[in-house]
């Protein structure tokens, strides 16, 4: 974390992330909101790179930008009329107050607590170590995650299949 290049990258990526997250709130067209959301995900992926988490950064780009954003786009174009507006409900001011409270509380805790620093440089390699941890120490959660993905895939196919629409 010494070089000025990393500092410049952090500030640019932080402004990009927060700015496009605000754009998701402000923009009225849902398609534009998805584009801003993709920009947010890309900013977070860049922040992972500055944290020397290369594997997670690539995963973020593949899963969030590649898969989840496309899912959002499909959901928007499959819900034609109501998919175009991005209005707030009547709860906007209580929600705004609550979110400001939560954010400022989190920032206060982050600044107040005394974190024991590792002080070392970035990780020499992440992908191979993550792979070994997944198949060794975290093998059971890994299998549970595969079962969860199977259930999610089958569930979403059943939900949107034409047969289930005809039953109603």
């Amino acid at each position, binding site marked *: 974390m010494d070089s000025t290049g990393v500092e410049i990258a952090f500030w640019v990526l932080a402004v990009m992330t927060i700015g496009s*997250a605000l754009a998701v709130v402000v923009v009225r067209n849902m398609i534009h909101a998805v584009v801003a959301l993709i920009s947010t995900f890309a900013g977070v992926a860049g922040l992972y790179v500055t944290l020397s988490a290369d594997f997670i950064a690539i995963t973020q780009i593949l899963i969030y930008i590649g898969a989840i954003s496309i899912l959002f786009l499909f959901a928007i174009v499959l819900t034609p009329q109501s998919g175009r507006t991005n209005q707030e409900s009547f709860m906007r001011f209580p929600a705004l107050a*609550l979110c400001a409270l939560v954010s400022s509380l989190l920032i206060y805790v982050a600044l107040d607590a005394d974190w024991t620093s590792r002080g070392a440089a970035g990780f020499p390699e992440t992908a191979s170590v993550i792979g070994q*941890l997944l198949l060794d120490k975290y093998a059971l959660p890994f299998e549970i995650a595969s079962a969860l993905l199977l259930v999610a895939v089958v569930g979403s196919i059943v939900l949107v299949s034409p047969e289930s629409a005809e039953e109603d």
Partner: protein
Amino acid sequence: MAIHLEHYLIVGAILFGIGLYLALAKRNFIGVLMGIEMMFNACNLTFIAFSRFVQSNDPLAGHVFVVFTITVSAAEAAVALALAVMVYRTRDTIDVDQIDLLKW
């Protein structure tokens, strides 16, 4: 001024707040889901930042946890967007103020 853990935590906190606002205040169900994904991202960023900066016996456990979080959020997005399409088919709206069939 070097970049420390607190910088990442502050970015994560602001991102979490914006996501929470989207999830609470948006009328469009898909907008609510966007907020939830944004909160997932904020938490993942915080995990990775702690994994990078804080002393621990198992330094890459945070990365492994983020892999699982991304898996769960992908499954959640698939099911929830299928639900959104399904609700739109049956009720012709995904305005969360009007989906009040179970309201007592």
